[in-house]
């Protein structure tokens, strides 16, 4: 795990920024995102709607907390939890052989597949470094 303060600061800004961006594009069009969730064919119409309303704000807030350096470990926990969920979701979707848009970054989204999983794992690594940093050593 990375311990260098400057590197951890960069991790925080990058990961926080990515989550704020990912959340913001979804907040702008909740129904489109709801459709994306529905396409995964795991939850029904109502749950898709609820997730589409709440999830983007969770991404934005945890991203903002991370960038601001307030409650960074709590924010890193939320983000890491979301990423673990995304990885499992994408893997299950691949195994089921579904061809769906990942719905992850608005217009920059592409098919839910290995590329998406690798990206999520890379972000998860940043999240883990931030989550398990020693208290008091953080920037």
């Amino acid at each position, binding site marked *: 795990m990375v311990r260098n303060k400057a590197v951890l600061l960069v991790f925080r800004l990058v990961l926080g920024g990515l989550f704020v961006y990912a959340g913001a594009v979804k*907040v702008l069009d*909740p*129904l*489109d995102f*709801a*459709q994306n969730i*529905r*396409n995964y*064919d795991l939850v029904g*119409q*109502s749950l*898709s*709607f609820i997730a589409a*309303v*709440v999830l*983007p*704000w*969770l991404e*934005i*807030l*945890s991203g903002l*907390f991370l960038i601001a350096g307030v*409650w960074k*470990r*709590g*924010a890193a*926990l*939320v983000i890491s*939890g979301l990423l673990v969920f995304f990885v499992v979701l994408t893997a299950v979707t691949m195994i089921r052989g*579904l*061809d*769906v*848009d*990942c719905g992850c970054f608005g217009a920059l989204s*592409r*098919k*839910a597949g290995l590329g998406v999983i690798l990206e999520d794992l890379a972000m998860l690594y940043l999240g883990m470094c931030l*989550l398990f940093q020693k*208290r008091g050593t953080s920037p």
Partner: protein
Amino acid sequence: MRADNPLSEARRVLRQALVIGAVGLIVAVAVHSPLIKRFVRGEFRESFFQAAEYPGVRMITLAEAEDLWAAAAALVLDARARSFFAQGHVPGARNVPADGSGSAIPREILDRPGDMTIVVYCEGGTCQSSLALAKRLHDEGFKDIRVFSGGWEEWTKAGLPEEKGDGQE
């Protein structure tokens, strides 16, 4: 004085995460309250489709789809995957699989007049690809797109004619 043992530290982090989650929930409800009210009133239960955003796209029943097909009054598009299409489809339908990565609508279809009637369908039940295709056709400038939401399931149940093979002329 704060205890610094790992357990209380873990609790602290967990508490932070829960508060962030709760604040997220509150902000989401506050910001999207108009949309949530519409949902509570019963909208979006069938699809997340806002008719006002897609003028020219509307849902049709089996009877209307059959009439349009029998009169050859519409171009029929099948939004299912190629393999399903090959196993059986509405006679004369063209296959435009609407996969997630948004495969292109064939040029030959895009070149047709924008005011022609197009019927789109997919498997039926909860399938979403016909609506996705309808939205894309709308964005391409087509003005009369009818989504046969009962889809292939209703068509075969009604014992209507079917055609096999990949059917692409």
